[in-house]
């Protein structure tokens, strides 16, 4: 298993390298000039050139790239062009918000998705199955920001059950932390829950038709053992795949949800940096999120190995 994990980590290195190339190239690919941004409004051409030199943007691209990589390897994520804050500080401030949001969203979507999918799969073609399938179709089709707004209007403004905006760190109490996350996590996790439910349903139906399930049933095993022991684990592999993909997608989805709920997370930081053309922050964001996604993918790969021993052997 250890060798399997090491192989996966080694396989991630080239991906990370390619991502650093792409992230660095952003400064050239995105329209706009970082020197003009940093020089400020109404800056003269002379001043812009001065800033360009100060920032090292007049050096050859390859030199700039290796300086940047060198800084990254020593843990230096750079400094914001605009505010002068270190990127590490800004990301450290934003990361707990997005991780909290993603964690709660994934948790509820996994629980709800697996339960709904299992229930639908076990009741294939019944009215329950059709109702739940319609529900998941709705969940996939409706934009998360719309769900977010409806939740705010209903549960924050109408019933005053949860805050409409903001974030409280867990260090200030689990209750306030959770209350700020309930609505945004519900909105963010809806699509994921629907996707997991559909995959679980399909997986359950597929596995339930397998010979070994028929044999287990024929042996007289109770239904809950057939489902709980023999069906669920084998039906879980596509679910895990979806779970991994959705975990990465949640980072993207958080950009919108964090705006709707005014949460100071990575999504808000990324959006603001893109609008301001704050290239070093964008680059740092891309690298950090890539690392995050690579770790999730690694965990998914490890879980494959748990669910399917053939993967370990290969």
């Amino acid at each position: 298993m250890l060798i399997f994990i090491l192989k996966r980590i080694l396989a991630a290195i080239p991906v990370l390298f390619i991502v650093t190339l792409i992230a660095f190239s952003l400064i050239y690919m995105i329209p706009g000039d970082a020197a003009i941004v940093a020089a400020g409004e109404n800056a003269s051409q002379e001043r812009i050139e001065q800033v360009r030199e100060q920032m090292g943007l007049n050096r050859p691209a390859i030199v700039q790239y290796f300086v940047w990589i060198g800084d990254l390897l020593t843990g230096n994520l750079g400094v914001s062009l605009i505010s002068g804050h270190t990127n590490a500080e800004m990301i450290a401030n934003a990361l707990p918000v997005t991780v909290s949001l993603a964690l709660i969203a994934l948790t509820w979507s996994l629980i709800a998705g697996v339960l709904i999918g299992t229930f639908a799969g076990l009741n294939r073609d019944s009215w329950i199955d059709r109702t739940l399938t319609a529900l998941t179709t709705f969940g996939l089709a409706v934009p998360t920001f719309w769900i977010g707004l409806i939740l705010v209007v209903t549960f924050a403004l109408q019933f005053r059950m949860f805050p409409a905006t903001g974030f409280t760190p867990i260090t200030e109490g689990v209750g306030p932390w959770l209350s700020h996350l309930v609505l945004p996590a519900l909105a963010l996790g809806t699509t994921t829950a629907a996707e997991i439910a559909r995959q679980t349903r399909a997986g359950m139906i597929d596995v339930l038709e397998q010979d070994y399930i028929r044999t287990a049933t024929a042996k007289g095993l109770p239904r809950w053992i057939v489902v709980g022991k023999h069906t669920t684990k084998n039906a879980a592999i596509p679910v895990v795949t979806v779970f991994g993909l959705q975990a990465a997608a949640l980072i993207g989805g958080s950009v919108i949800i964090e705006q709707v709920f005014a949460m100071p997370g990575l999504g808000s930081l990324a959006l603001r940096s893109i609008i301001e053309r704050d290239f070093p922050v964008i680059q740092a964001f891309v690298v950090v999120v890539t690392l995050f996604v690579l770790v999730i993918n690694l965990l998914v790969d490890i879980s494959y190995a748990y669910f399917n021993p053939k993967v370990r052997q290969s």
Partner: protein
Amino acid sequence: MRASTPIRATIALGAVLVLASCSGGGTPAPSESSTAVADRTATVVIGGQITPSHLDPHRGVTENDIGMLRYWYDTLTTVVGNGEAAPFLAESWELSDDGKTFTLKLREGLTFVDGEPLDAAAVVTNFDRMISDPNSTVAYILEPIIESSEVVDPLTVQLNLKGGGGALPTILASRPGMMVSPKALANPDVLVTKAIGAGAFDLVEVNPGARYASVRRDDYWDEDAYKFAKLDYLVQADTATRLNSLAAGETTLTAVIGPQKQEAEAAGLKTWESDEPGTAFYRFSMNSERAAFGDKRVRQAMSAAVDRAAISNALFQGQCIPSAQPYPEGYFARSTTLDDSKWQTFDLEYAKKLMADAGYADGFSFTAAVPTLSTYQNFAQILQAQFAEIGITMNLEVIDTTQARQAFVTGKSDALVGFYGGGTDPGIYAMSAYSPKSGDNPGGLTTDNMAALLAETQRSIDIDERHLAFEALLDEAFEMGPAQIVVCHPVGVNATQQNISNFDQTGPLGSSYALRTMTVSK
């Protein structure tokens, strides 16, 4: 200024960018006051859109920072009423008869938030730094005016001038007038995370781009200003989110846009509408070296083809005051003698005649850069339809705000649909719009007299003399045919909780004054 109840009004996003975060200024008497008892222990939470680009006022990259920075940095002067400069950190000032020196007399007993005295030496240190710091983003304003500065006595500063001293009182109501503690300037990196000025508030906690928490200073020089204990500024980028947050009771006030005023009132919130427009305006800028914009008749035809009232009603529910002049009604720089009717009056027949006279009876086509924000896109589409009435095909290139302005300023775009954020000195706009090759005039459209007329607007500090100088300047500009079509000046609208009173938005900075005068009751 009034608390309004009827259902009406909207302002545009661009105006909100300026108005949502404003504070500071003097403490003018509210036009409608309340007898509510102030809760001086209250915390005011603002839901705002703007993130300050830098906590160092001399290094920020945008004038939009000013509104927020005013909480932590008082300016040497302020502007009130018709835009006239008024005492603030400086009690008085004087421009010598020969225009060579400008002398500032400081208020006594001023201190920075770090306890350092704000005296003449501190002011001189600030001016030296603003002009000589290679990272200064205000040097371009001061460097053409100030030669050097010196201490006369502990409360008196003398600025030795190259010229243009008449504009200093209004310029010093902006970023160049924000004084930073000399102790902090010795290590300016500290200003990345801390604002160290002489404002009413001490910035105690910063989550960059998210939250700026401040407490009111007990030793602030103006006891009557900011009658509450804490100020929390939350960055809430989305307009609907800001109103939701206010309606949920999580914030105290926010700027509202369009039908949000009705929504706020329906939610039981108070709304406040400025009686006067600010110095900001919506505009259409042309590069006079491109398309057919070099012909004055074409520029005038396009101005006459713009139905300003229709735009104000369609986009801003009438809350954008139509004007062809860059300065609003009631502002000292606005010309009261200029006959701009042939520019401002919507007259399609006249516009078509001008186009025919210019040899463009069949029209022409061009491409305008349009910022991505929906307000600008809607504004551009209306202009597109109105120009089409006189045969002009306006193609829209929608790109992000920074890039749109860059494309225009660098001469890569024919035209720009946009917004001018206003300011405390009218000369900064005039310089940019009427000087050759300046930011708002990439085509270099000017006249032989323009430089002298611009200099005249900066010659005297007397408001009446400056008014006359601006009238002469605008006469020249409209005779030349400005390369910018001014459309309308927006009016600010804010929503607050019910326990807010005396929210006075009077003056050229609109809601800038409101927090100084407002009362939070229990």
